[in-house]
């Protein structure tokens, strides 16, 4: 690890750019899914989202917006070198992320209890499951990133690396937050 901090630092900018490019491809992925929804729903009557979305999705929206705030606090603390604060906010974000996933899963159970299943002759409902499922997968990836950021905040790595991990984690976390807001608004508008 000691051998070339200079080389690593030199390499950080391209690596951050890699994350942005991944975000672009992720955006395209969700754009592909939602335009699939539009093409499907445009096919005619009986192919629209004709049930209410689970209430849990409202709460999960609140939770993920909150988690974005806590993530930003963690990011600011790491900039000010307040590592105790950084740790605290990161743990909080991690907790909120887990709560978010639980709320999404709860939303699915609410629907299945009502008889609104993933396997459905109205594929718009299958689409809702697919959207939320793939978004949750992104959240899981985000949680893994938060865990690595937490690990680095315990001072096991040089501060450059800590700041860098903190930075890319927060970029990604805000991104998955925005994706959820987009998906939720998209579904509300297509109800």
């Amino acid at each position, binding site marked *: 690890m000691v*051998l*070339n901090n*200079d*080389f690593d630092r*030199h*390499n950080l*900018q*391209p*690596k951050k*750019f*890699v994350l942005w*490019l*991944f975000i*672009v*491809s*992720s955006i*395209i*992925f*969700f*754009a*592909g*899914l939602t*335009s*699939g929804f539009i*093409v*499907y729903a445009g*096919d005619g009557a*009986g*192919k629209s989202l004709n049930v209410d979305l689970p209430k849990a999705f409202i709460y999960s929206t609140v939770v993920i917006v909150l988690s974005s705030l806590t993530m930003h606090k963690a990011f600011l603390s790491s900039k000010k070198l307040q590592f105790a604060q950084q740790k605290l906010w990161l743990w909080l974000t991690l907790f909120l992320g887990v709560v978010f996933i639980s709320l999404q899963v709860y939303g699915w159970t609410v629907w299945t209890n009502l008889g609104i299943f*993933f*396997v*459905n*002759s*109205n*594929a718009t409902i*299958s*689409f809702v499951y*697919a959207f939320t499922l*793939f978004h949750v997968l992104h959240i899981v990836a985000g949680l893994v990133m938060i865990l690595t950021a937490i690990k680095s905040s315990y001072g096991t790595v040089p501060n450059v690396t800590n700041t860098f991990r903190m930075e890319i984690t927060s970029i990604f976390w805000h991104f998955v937050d925005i994706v959820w807001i987009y998906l939720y608004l998209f579904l509300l508008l297509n109800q």
Partner: protein
Amino acid sequence: MSTIAINNPSAIHHDDHAHHQETFLTKYVFSQDHKMIAKQFLITGIIMGVIAMILSILFRIQLAYPDHSFPLLEVLLGRFAPEGRLDPNFYLSLVTIHGTIMVFFVLTAGLSGTFSNLLIPLQIGARDMASPFMNMLSYWLFFTASVIMLSTFFVESGPAGGGWTIYPPLSAVPKAMPGSGFGMTLWLISMILFIASSLMGGINYVSTILNMRTKGMDLWKMPLTIWSFLLTAMLGILSFPVLVAGVVLLIFDRSFGTSFYLSDIFIGGQALAHEGGSPILWQHLFWFLGHPEVYIVIMPAMGIASEVMSVNSRKPIFGYHAMVYSLIGITTLSFIVWGHHMFVTGMNPFLGGVFMITTLIIAVPSAVKTFNWLATLWRGNIRFTPAMLFAIGLVSFFISGGLTGIWLGNAALDINLHDTYFVVAHFHLVMGSAAIFGMIAGVYHWFPKMFGRLMNVKLGYLHFWLTFAAAYLVFFPMHFMGLDGVPRRYYAFTEFESMDKWLSVNVFITWSAILGAVAQIAFLFNFVYSIFFGEKSTENPWEANTLEWTTPVERIHGNWPGEIPTVYRWSYDYSKPGHDTDFIMQTTPHSQTMSSNLLHDFEGNEAAEKIQEKWNLEHNRIDSSEEVK
């Protein structure tokens, strides 16, 4: 040879860590060095290409001799060829896997994977990729995808058989036919891995090109190869995720019982539970990737051809900026033309008209590129190396295959031509021949950079002429079959009276294809032999300008032993009037080429212009490009 400025203090550190212990495993297998990864992609790509070519010979034999029995086939293929005749379902699998391997595994991974990995760091002046680890992962995902794709030949029901576009319902209902069974599932898994590999590679290429260029290498000094790799990678990043979206929905339909793509399906009089889905939805999602994909295939080949033709014509590429803008134009347009694959799906004729117009507009940037290549050759001091011949071959195929694109892009004509051999002829000329020729040109040209040795020229000529002739003999007659309405993917022409008369043509095509396949032995032998016993290469065997030819022949980790060289000029200063050699490398500063500098070389730097003008007066040199004849 050139002035080198220190522009990268980290280089010193890098040398330190280049000394860490390399084992066989880290050097040849799990290598993170871009040059080794490029070779891994190339060799895997070539092996996949040979396999896909053998598959095509198998179904060509069936097409030429549908009523003959070849006992040897049963020996080789067992239950896939009972009594020496291909099983009809296996025929469909052959066509499907041939297409899949050629389009994705050879012309996407084999082409972009090889040359983007090899040339991006070398030509922009970087020590490696933005993320060497991700680069390694990209290769191993590709390798795993290849293994899974080939393993489907050992599945009881055979490989996927629904065509490389895997339209539902054939791909979505496992019971539809043998080729829809487990082989199809593996096909989907293989493709997901492949897409992950492509995305990792593409993201790395874009980040490396945009962030890690050496000092002086601004975007407009990059060789056209780098431009084409950049735009290809961008296309991949913007289109492959849509295919992922489509494929996961397909997996849901296949394995979980959803109805995204399925509706009103009856098997043996029994209705399936799927209801309300739309198979057209798949076509939209697939072709939104599928069309950009054909440019992912051809654009790197175009970049390679531009570079090879300029070097071997000893002339600057004609219309460098126009070449870049036409690449950008093709990239942009490729996203709004996917509907031309779907003209006959019952699409609104107005929408069809829109897609037709956007499609035909692509002819403009394509024609710009073609004329620029021809103008580059014009009055050049041409060196007919094998690479050059293959690059010229690319232009030839791109013209003859591109012209038929104008027919096919027409929504009205497409009613007749859709899914006929005319389409097969078209895309085999532009992708199957032009893009492959670009790839082979790249192999001959950059072989010394990969292996430190030269390939045999005479075998190269033999390879070129046989392949060139065979490709035209195979694909040209198919146009006439298509115009007569002969549909593609049919198992036995003898079963249809209207197609019976084309059987003799099929025999001719098959023998031409066999000739073309045999010709590849010249290449394969040359390739393998030259790796070990080829003539040793010098540092710059082609007298080219680009940065990769400033690296040592030994191909060290980190590419340059000292500092990374600085770039002072574009990469196409060939035969510049007033200079004593017919090439000036990008690393040569203008202060060393006073006798050939033109005022516009200084890009508005008035101080430099003044110095040049003073020099011109002192040396009695008239500085005006118009004066030079």
